[in-house]
């Protein structure tokens, strides 16, 4: 956990006061909706189909139990008793009244939380690996660097009115769990030939109507230069990014139109002028930020203690859950536990206030008071002693967050879609529910293995459909909801955009199509353990296309 000091607390409190004044001016009519819009957006407040929605920032997906309890309080007091965790490791509340928004934000400020820069044309909430700090394959905790950048870009006077939003992700593992290549700017920590630590810098990734994977513009950036180089990228984009067309305003279009090499040269010229200035960071600066992170005081434990192994043998349901939802931790005797927010028939990523309170209590008891939010819209208890897993499992099961479907076909990523969102063309949530119900048989789901379905209700791609193994995109045709299907996308270290398999299908047929695709995979795979995504890569989409459209 990053621990706020007086600086951080003062800034958040001043921000609440500022927003309270802005809301008062809007309610009195002093501000027009057009003038108020960018102000509320920079506090995460959207006007949706039915009400105002507020998106609360969870920097790099790390929450304390105290913060999660406050989110539960906000859900209960100001909303309808639940919240929605997003693909950007944030949480959204969909039913808060504008007049009560300042009070809700003031409550959140008590635990260092806010909606700053969760929307608007500024640098958005920094994201990273939800297993940061505990993953066995990690070089160093990427949250330290995410925090360095988070501070620098918070209320940045130069970069608060850019051409469009700007998303930054930081990773530090060989295996990319942060979807780096779909970000405007991504930094991957690695060692160069001389053994020094630095970052691979990638720019220009993003989905939406013109999807691009980010291109590497600097293979190795020394750590000291992380802020000056980020500033050079932002300054180049702020000055030269397109502002004539909202659909061409993201940095990916600038990088594409200039070409990555020309863009990189432009950035480099700017960077040479500032790299040795106030933004160069020495070891004391990193140590200052790193020193504000608190790490658990782990017990010295053995891996797989006997009681744990016996419990696995004794109870197949527990064993299934462990195999699915508990991952290796870098510390012996501990596991990283994923809490599925994808129960059958539920809305992906939703949690009730009661669930949040219960999870906060369980985090205190079993996970050093810490919770993570992953971009797959599940929660994580990152530091659980394996000897505690049987007891924890029963308690998680009791509150409905132990469905053993993590990374399986019903672990669906979906945007809120037309049920909430004013931009959507089609519903997402009912599609996710239908698919989850269709594949409710756990043996069937397990047999299908790792399979990621991503659903977006419009071309803005909040459900990241381009990088789903199966991607589903809602479109509107003559007033009816249709869905385009793509196959073969993925967002990891071998990121790929999916391929469209054919004409869009109507709402009522989507679950059937997914069933056809799953059946085709079972026939096509070379071995039972050839993953769906590997089969698609080997065969291409043609055999799936044939199967899906043979009878349609």
């Amino acid at each position: 956990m990053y621990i706020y000091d007086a600086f951080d607390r003062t800034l958040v409190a001043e921000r609440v006061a500022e927003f309270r004044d802005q809301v008062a001016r809007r309610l009195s009519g002093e501000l027009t909706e057009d003038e108020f819009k960018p102000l509320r957006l920079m506090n995460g407040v959207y006007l949706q189909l039915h009400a105002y929605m507020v998106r609360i920032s969870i920097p790099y997906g790390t929450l304390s139990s105290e913060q999660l309890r406050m989110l539960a309080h906000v859900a209960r007091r100001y909303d309808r008793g639940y919240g929605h965790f997003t693909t950007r490791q944030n949480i959204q509340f969909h039913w808060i009244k504008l007049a009560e928004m300042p009070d809700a934000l003031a409550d959140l400020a008590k635990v260092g939380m806010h909606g700053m820069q969760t929307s608007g044309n500024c640098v958005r909430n920094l994201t990273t690996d939800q297993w940061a700090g505990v993953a066995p394959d990690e070089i160093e905790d990427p949250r330290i660097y995410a925090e360095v950048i988070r501070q620098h870009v918070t209320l940045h006077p130069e970069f608060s009115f850019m051409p469009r939003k700007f998303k930054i992700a930081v990773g530090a593992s060989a295996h990319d769990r942060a979807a780096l290549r779909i970000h405007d700017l991504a930094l991957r920590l690695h060692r160069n030939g001389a053994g020094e630590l630095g970052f691979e810098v990638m720019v220009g990734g993003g989905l939406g109507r013109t999807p691009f994977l980010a291109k590497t513009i600097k293979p190795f950036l020394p750590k000291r230069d992380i802020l000056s180089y980020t500033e050079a990228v932002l300054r180049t984009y702020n000055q030269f990014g397109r502002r004539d067309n909202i659909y061409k305003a993201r940095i990916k279009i600038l990088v594409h139109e200039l070409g990555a090499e020309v863009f990189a040269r432009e950035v480099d010229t700017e960077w040479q002028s500032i790299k040795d200035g106030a933004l160069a960071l020495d070891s004391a600066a990193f140590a200052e930020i790193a020193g504000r992170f608190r790490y658990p005081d782990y017990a010295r434990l053995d891996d797989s203690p006997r009681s744990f192994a016996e419990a696995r043998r004794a109870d197949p349901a527990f064993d299934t859950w462990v195999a699915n939802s508990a991952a290796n931790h870098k510390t012996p005797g501990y596991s990283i536990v994923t809490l599925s927010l994808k129960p059958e028939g539920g809305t992906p990523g939703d949690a009730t206030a009661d669930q949040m309170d219960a999870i906060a209590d369980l985090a205190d008891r079993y996970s050093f008071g810490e919770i993570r939010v992953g971009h797959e819209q599940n929660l994580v208890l990152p530091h659980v002693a394996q000897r505690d897993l049987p007891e924890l499992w029963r308690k998680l099961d009791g509150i409905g967050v132990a469905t053993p479907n993590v990374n399986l076909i019903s672990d669906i990523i979906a945007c809120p879609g037309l049920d909430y969102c004013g931009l959507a063309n089609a519903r997402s949530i009912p599609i996710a529910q239908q698919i989850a119900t269709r594949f409710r048989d756990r043996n069937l789901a397990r047999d299908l293995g790792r399979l990621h379905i991503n659903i977006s209700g419009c071309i803005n791609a909040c459900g990241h459909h381009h990088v789903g193994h199966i991607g589903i995109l809602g479109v509107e045709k003559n007033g009816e909801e249709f869905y385009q299907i793509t196959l073969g996308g993925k967002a990891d270290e071998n990121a790929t955009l999916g391929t469209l398999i054919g004409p869009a299908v109507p709402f009522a047929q989507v679950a059937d199509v997914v069933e056809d695709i799953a059946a085709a995979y079972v026939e096509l795979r070379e071995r039972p353990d050839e993953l769906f995504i590997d089969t698609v890569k080997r065969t291409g989409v043609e055999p799936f296309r044939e199967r899906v459209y043979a009878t349609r």
Partner: protein
Amino acid sequence: MPLVKAGQIVEDRYVRAVDDAPIPEGVPVIVPGARFLADAELVTRNAPIGVLWPNDKRVAELEPWLEDLSLIALVFPKFRDGRAYSQARLLRERYGYRCELRATGEVLRDQFQFLLRAGFDSFEVKKEADARAFAQAASRFSVFYQPSADGGVPALRCRLQAAPAARAHEAV
């Protein structure tokens, strides 16, 4: 449109040169950027000269004349168009421009503090009520995370000065 300088509403002593009309003698004028570049002799006139610089041209083009200009006006065609923030910082921090730097266009209350931090020191404010609220709006935030053109000390440097090397943690 009220002009705010040093936190106060003041009278604007500059005259805007319009189109191709003759430039008035003996009074401070603001000339459009293209006209200025076409006639750099203007800097030899006997009254202060300012330039209105568009937000889609590099401020580096003005570098040869920065000593001669007494004012540079940058433009916010819409307040959501933030290109002039970068231009302002470059003028102040890279090219060392020290005279009046004016924000023009859609200049609203909620930008004041950003504008000050980017190096602006005069403001053609769109709304009278915003101009009157300048001092209050310009001091909403007392802490900053990043170094900028106003020379304020960012949080990280304050922390390091308060507790130099007090924290031992593996880094770098």
